[in-house]
């Protein structure tokens, strides 16, 4: 079964698609990955640089499909670069011997094989004994990938059914996150007591990444940026949950985490490039697009691009972000942004934080003030409430359902909600930290009537799950009258309720909250504020 699935996937993917599984196989085999080229644009002919368990440096160039003579001629220069140019990496001594590999997920024609032999012999004749290129072909990759995932691949009917449903998903829509997260949880063995060693868990994490890549392939075929990113964020959330639960040495999952993060960032860069190159953002057949569908898409895309910018500013990868993004938000935020319910809060928050980091504090506040005002809507007679729900939808209601209900599509019902808010307290505290007392004062009559709600999982690692079944749903009210001093203390209080793995890498929240909007809590927003990148001067 696993071989058939791997074969089906491998023959239809490209080098970018199998780059992550290939790296995970190397990790499983004990290699240390030193470098992965961005956007698979090989640097000096090298897509991946790794050190094998015996200390030998290995450089790989990845290709897609069968290689015939014509294709070989077009890539010959890159192969020369792969072999002849030294590995430029601080961890590698340039005089060290290097093994070079040409990797493809297809086959290689006999004349090409002879041409490679000739090339190797020519180097040998010149006394360049370390200059040689070896081949890793589709059949070998198939074996590697099947072995890497094999022991973790679901065998029982229910997870197997879940896998197949996810694998055969419509690549144009967003992933079923509930199903995906629950599948990943099972794949990583998070829900069951584990006696596995750190090494075994590392193998499991790598194997799960290989299987996750298969699940992402329908979205890669459609170049569905958001879906690909959501899947990888869900995978990393599951890995972090496992790391927190088992108190794993960070080294166990560090390289996989970095590789997947790099993949997420690359995908976001592609999204940003496409966004900046387009005149409009209609997708698919125009009928059914536009209006709230269009606004929801732009809210999400802008949210993700701002998350990328914040992440990179925080990681110090890029000093000055592209000015065009802030200009587009300034000119269009009133027309583009849509607050469809509380699952839209993280998008607005991230956009607002990005504006703030760019010194656009008024714009930043206006975006969140609108959210604050919307969160206070409680009377059914209030015309500002969406007509598809009795109250502002809670964060568990995903955007697709809000759109379906708003458009009165069959299968989507008008949703009923209680008069309680999961995001009002975090947004109030966000406002307090910015000393927005006047605005809060004006809204306090409404705010004080809202029942506030926040979920506290019994185990911290449950915070990283899509669904937690052990914990407390806390509901409370703000005081009336409410002391500003006490409110300020609450807004700045660190309550350490998040997993340690999150406090160690808070920048993950930029991505995580967009995929898991029900995990936006007072503490997670406080942490984002605490670790905010320095404002651009």
């Amino acid at each position, binding site marked *: 079964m696993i071989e058939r699935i791997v074969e089906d996937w491998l023959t239809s993917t490209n080098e970018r698609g199998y780059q992550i599984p290939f790296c995970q196989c190397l990790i499983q085999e004990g290699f240390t990955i030193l470098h992965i080229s961005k956007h698979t644009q090989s640097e000096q002919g090298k897509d991946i640089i790794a050190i094998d368990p015996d200390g030998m440096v290995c450089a790989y160039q990845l290709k897609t499909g069968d290689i015939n003579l014509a294709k070989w001629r077009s890539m010959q220069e890159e192969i020369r670069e792969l072999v002849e140019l030294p590995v430029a990496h601080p961890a590698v001594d340039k005089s060290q011997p290097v093994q070079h590999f040409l990797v493809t997920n297809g086959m290689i024609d006999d004349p090409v094989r002879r041409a490679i032999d000739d090339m190797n012999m020519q180097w040998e004749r010149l006394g360049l004994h370390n200059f040689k290129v070896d081949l890793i072909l589709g059949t070998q990759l198939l074996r590697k990938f099947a072995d890497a995932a094999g022991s973790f691949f679901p065998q029982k009917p229910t997870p197997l059914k879940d896998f197949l449903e996810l694998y055969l998903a419509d690549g144009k829509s967003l992933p079923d996150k509930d199903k995906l997260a629950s599948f990943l949880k099972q794949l990583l063995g998070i829900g069951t007591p584990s006696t596995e060693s750190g090494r075994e868990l590392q193998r499991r994490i790598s194997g799960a990444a290989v299987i996750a890549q298969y699940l992402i392939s329908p979205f890669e075929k459609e170049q569905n940026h958001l879906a690909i990113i959501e899947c990888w964020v869900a995978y990393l959330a599951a890995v972090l949950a496992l790391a927190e639960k088992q108190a794993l040495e960070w080294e166990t999952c560090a390289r996989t985490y970095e590789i997947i993060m790099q993949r997420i960032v690359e995908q976001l860069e592609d999204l940003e490039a496409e966004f900046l190159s387009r005149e409009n953002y209609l997708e698919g057949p125009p009928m059914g697009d536009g209006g709230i569908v269009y606004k929801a898409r732009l809210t999400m895309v802008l949210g993700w691009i701002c998350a990328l910018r914040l992440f990179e500013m925080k990681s110090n990868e890029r000093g000055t972000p592209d000015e065009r993004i802030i200009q587009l938000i300034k000119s269009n935020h009133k027309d583009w942004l849509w607050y469809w319910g509380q699952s839209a809060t993280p998008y607005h928050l991230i956009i607002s934080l990005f504006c703030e980091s760019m010194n656009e504090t008024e714009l930043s506040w206006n975006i969140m003030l609108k959210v604050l005002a919307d969160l206070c809507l409680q009377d059914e007679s209030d015309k500002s409430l969406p007509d598809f729900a009795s109250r502002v939808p*809670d964060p*568990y209601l995903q955007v697709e359902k809000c759109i379906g209900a708003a458009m009165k599509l069959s299968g989507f019902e008008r949703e009923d909600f209680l008069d309680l808010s999961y995001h009002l307290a975090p947004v109030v505290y966000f406002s307090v930290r910015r000393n927005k*007392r006047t605005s*809060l*004062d004006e809204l*306090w*009559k409404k705010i*004080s*009537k809202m029942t506030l709600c926040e*979920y*506290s*999982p*019994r185990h911290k690692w449950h915070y990283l799950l899509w*669904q*937690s*079944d*052990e*914990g*407390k*749903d*806390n*509901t*409370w*009210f703000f005081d*009336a*009258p*409410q*002391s*500003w*001093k006490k*409110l300020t203390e609450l807004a700045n209080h660190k309550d350490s309720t998040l997993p340690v793995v999150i406090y160690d890498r808070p920048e993950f929240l930029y991505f995580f909250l967009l995929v898991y909007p*029900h995990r936006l809590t007072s503490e997670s927003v406080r942490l984002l504020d605490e670790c905010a990148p320095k404002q651009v001067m």
Partner: protein
Amino acid sequence: MHEGDILSVKSDKGLPVESELKEISAGFLLKNEDIIAKGMEAYYAKLDELAQSIKNQEERIMLNAMEQAAERVQNVVDTKGNFSFSTILDALEKITISFDSNGNPSVQDIILSPSAAAKMRAMLPELEKKEYKRRYNEIIERKRKEWLDRENSRRLVD
């Protein structure tokens, strides 16, 4: 509740109350001969019974929760078996009443046992008595003032 197994409710009076999830279930038995003779109708006939059973269990849980909450804060009026409108007015004194934008008090529901409900229905003409009306109006005016005080307190202070 979307997640977890405990609901913690902290009222505006600041008293947190935790409650665990309670199971509500109901079932029914069908004989093979009924299924053969009536098909789906045999199931449909049982549905009302099933729904009623679930509704009754829900009701019981909610009434118990209300009773416990009232007893916890000693907000109970003991009729000592002498149920009258005066008792209802005593109860009104003890509860929080809100008012709509036109100044009308929000509707209060009264849950009674079937026998108490019958007794109350028989007593309805008594409602016209001046003493009841006067006391009711006094209570409502007092509650209106309390409500206005509450509304005015909905603000930020130092």
